[in-house]
């Protein structure tokens, strides 16, 4: 069978599975819609969290990104896993004990203020929409690349699927679909990785092959460093960014991860406090399987690519080269007209430009793997994008139905009315996300820094202070959130949107790039909250008692 048929078959089977699960796990109450009734087993929640967290970017772009960044790619690897330690130790068990439905719920109750709740709702919706537009685009891209349909048709098919199980099933439907999606995506990521590891190093386990030798007996990473040196690229295994920038970016991604509402809310779905702790551990194991394989794939792909193209005749390139050239993801211009591909570090002499997304998507073709493996990669990319999109849409729907309508606009709404409002909000959110996917705002790549920066500078500090301090009050929290948010937003807007020409190391504060500035925003938030709280009255007694009570499992 050809790739096309295989792809239709495998994607078709997985989609049928998702819809089947959605029908089986319909939500009947608001509690089921928001937190799956709180009955999810820790292991299932760990898988669902992993799928929720690993997006189209983790699946499709990350390995490619690392293969072009070398050592510096560690900011993503450590940043997007280290946050789970913070979640498990500092956030998940306490918010589970608090026992409500959403993150703005906690902020509003702990800081006894609807202003604080509203700021939190605004942040949750902004962060989630930012993220979800990228996911819908990812669905469209995978469809167009593998099934040769229009990108927009792909987005619409994705919308219909998500609409079906998010609106019908709420958190309950999403949870069990995410479990299935995790299995699909990890299988789809690991199969080609294992094949390529065997091919390049003879080792079945990519994590070991990464440190192993290639056929000629030289260590893979030494070979890669050697190739880089020869061609004038910076060494693969050494840092290129400044130390302080690596520091701040890693920290912003870690605390941003721990502050993202769609991740936190997953820990409201397990029955007990101790389940919340262990399920963060399971989630990180499931995530680590992909995250420790990705850098190995990055090194394999990089070596393979250089060996295939560097100093070779353009006319003798394999079939995939031309295919990806057509999509514009590879471009070659023969500057010295010698018919050879000159792939070097010096931009004046370099003749080849390669898009990072190719590394995962074309890897099976480059390594000449069977057609069903290529089809599997398509299904895996879709699973990664759809699972993340659904989790984000649920946060948007909950924020509107629960935090705005039920808690502020119309507290007398019936349970049935609230459930209906949540479904309508989810439906509208799917449509808005789809429109973003079809007409992507030109700034999608830039706004990801924004999402993490905002989560790091707003949610993370106020949640941590809300749990570990009884003294931080309403005034302090609101002031801290506003200072953290405004500072981080202005810095990112200044360098990313207003004056992108000035976005260079010399102009950055202390050499911190916009990607890492959320860390500084977080520090400001902590300081301002502490100082303002010190000069204003302490929180009411019942709030202090609530803080006391969330510190113990019973």
């Amino acid at each position, binding site marked *: 069978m050809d790739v096309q048929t295989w792809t239709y078959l495998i994607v078709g089977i997985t989609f049928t599975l998702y819809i089947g699960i959605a029908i089986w796990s319909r939500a009947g109450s608001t509690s089921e819609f928001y937190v799956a009734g709180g009955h999810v087993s820790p292991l299932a929640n760990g898988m669902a969290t992993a799928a929720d967290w690993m997006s189209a970017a983790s699946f499709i772009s990350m390995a490619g990104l*690392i293969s072009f960044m070398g*050592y510096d*790619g*560690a900011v993503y*690897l*450590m940043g997007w*896993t*280290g946050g*789970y*330690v913070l979640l*498990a*130790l*500092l956030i998940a*068990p306490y918010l589970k004990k608090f026992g409500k439905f959403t993150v703005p719920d906690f902020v509003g109750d702990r800081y006894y203020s609807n202003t604080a709740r509203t700021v939190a709702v605004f942040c949750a919706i902004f962060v989630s929409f930012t993220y979800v537009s990228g996911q819908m685009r990812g669905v469209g891209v995978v469809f167009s690349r593998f099934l040769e349909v229009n990108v927009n048709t792909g987005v619409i098919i994705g919308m219909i699927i998500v609409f079906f199980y998010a609106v019908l099933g709420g958190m309950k439907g999403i949870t069990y679909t995410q479990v299935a999606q995790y299995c699909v995506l990890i299988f789809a990521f690991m199969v080609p990785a294992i094949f390529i590891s065997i091919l390049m190093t003879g080792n079945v386990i990519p*994590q070991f092959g*990464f*440190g*192993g*030798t290639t056929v000629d007996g030289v*260590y*893979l*990473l*030494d070979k890669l460093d050697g190739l880089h040196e020869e061609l004038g690229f910076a060494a693969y*295994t*050494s*840092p290129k960014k400044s*130390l302080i920038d*690596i*520091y701040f970016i*890693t*920290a912003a991604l870690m605390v941003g991860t721990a502050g993202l509402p769609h991740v936190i809310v997953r820990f409201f779905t397990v029955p*007990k*406090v*101790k389940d919340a*702790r*262990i399920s*963060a*551990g399971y989630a*990180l*194991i499931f995530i*680590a399987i992909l*995250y*420790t394989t990705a*850098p190995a794939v990055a090194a394999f792909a990089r070596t393979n690519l250089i060996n295939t193209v560097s100093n070779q005749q353009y006319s003798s390139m394999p079939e995939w080269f031309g295919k990806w050239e057509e999509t514009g993801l590879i471009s070659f211009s023969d500057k010295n007209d010698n018919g050879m591909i000159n792939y070097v570090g010096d931009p004046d002499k370099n003749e080849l430009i390669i898009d990072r997304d190719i590394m995962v998507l074309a890897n099976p073709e480059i390594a000449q793997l069977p057609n069903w493996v290529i089809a599997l990669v398509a299904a895996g990319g879709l699973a990664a994008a759809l699972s993340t999109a659904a989790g984000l849409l649920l946060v948007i729907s909950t924020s509107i139905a629960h935090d705005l309508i039920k808690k502020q606009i119309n507290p007398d709404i019936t349970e049935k009315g609230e459930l209906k409002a949540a479904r309508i909000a989810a439906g509208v959110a799917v449509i808005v996300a789809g429109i973003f996917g079809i007409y992507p705002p030109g700034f999608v790549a830039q706004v990801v820094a924004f999402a993490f920066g905002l989560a790091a500078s707003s949610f993370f500090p106020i949640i941590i202070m809300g749990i570990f301090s009884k003294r931080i009050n309403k005034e302090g929290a609101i002031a801290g959130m506003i200072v953290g948010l405004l500072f981080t937003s202005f810095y990112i807007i200044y360098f990313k949107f207003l004056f992108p020409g000035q976005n260079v190391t010399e102009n950055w504060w202390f050499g911190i790039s916009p990607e890492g500035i959320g860390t500084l925003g977080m520090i400001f938030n902590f300081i301002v909250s502490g100082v303002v709280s010190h000069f204003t009255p302490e929180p009411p007694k019942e709030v202090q008692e609530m803080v*006391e009570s969330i*510190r*113990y*499992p*019973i």
Partner: protein
Amino acid sequence: MSDQSHEAYWRTNLKYLAILLSIWFLSSYVLGIVLVEPLNAIRIRGFKLGFWFAQQGSIYIFVILIFVYVHLMNKLDRKYDVDEK
């Protein structure tokens, strides 16, 4: 449960957090970032050690830290009789 035993439980929890988060900090920010160049002089098979901590080792340590915490807290919950039956 008395306030005193509550306080003792919470203090022990904070002590665990301080120790585990120090290891978390050490494995990523110190070994994986600050000391990467000197550690790269040490090799384990094909890996330079600093590079390995940054792209592999820190992640394994993160996983272990969470499970150690879970184990310690389950024991602590039982000791102070605040565990969920």
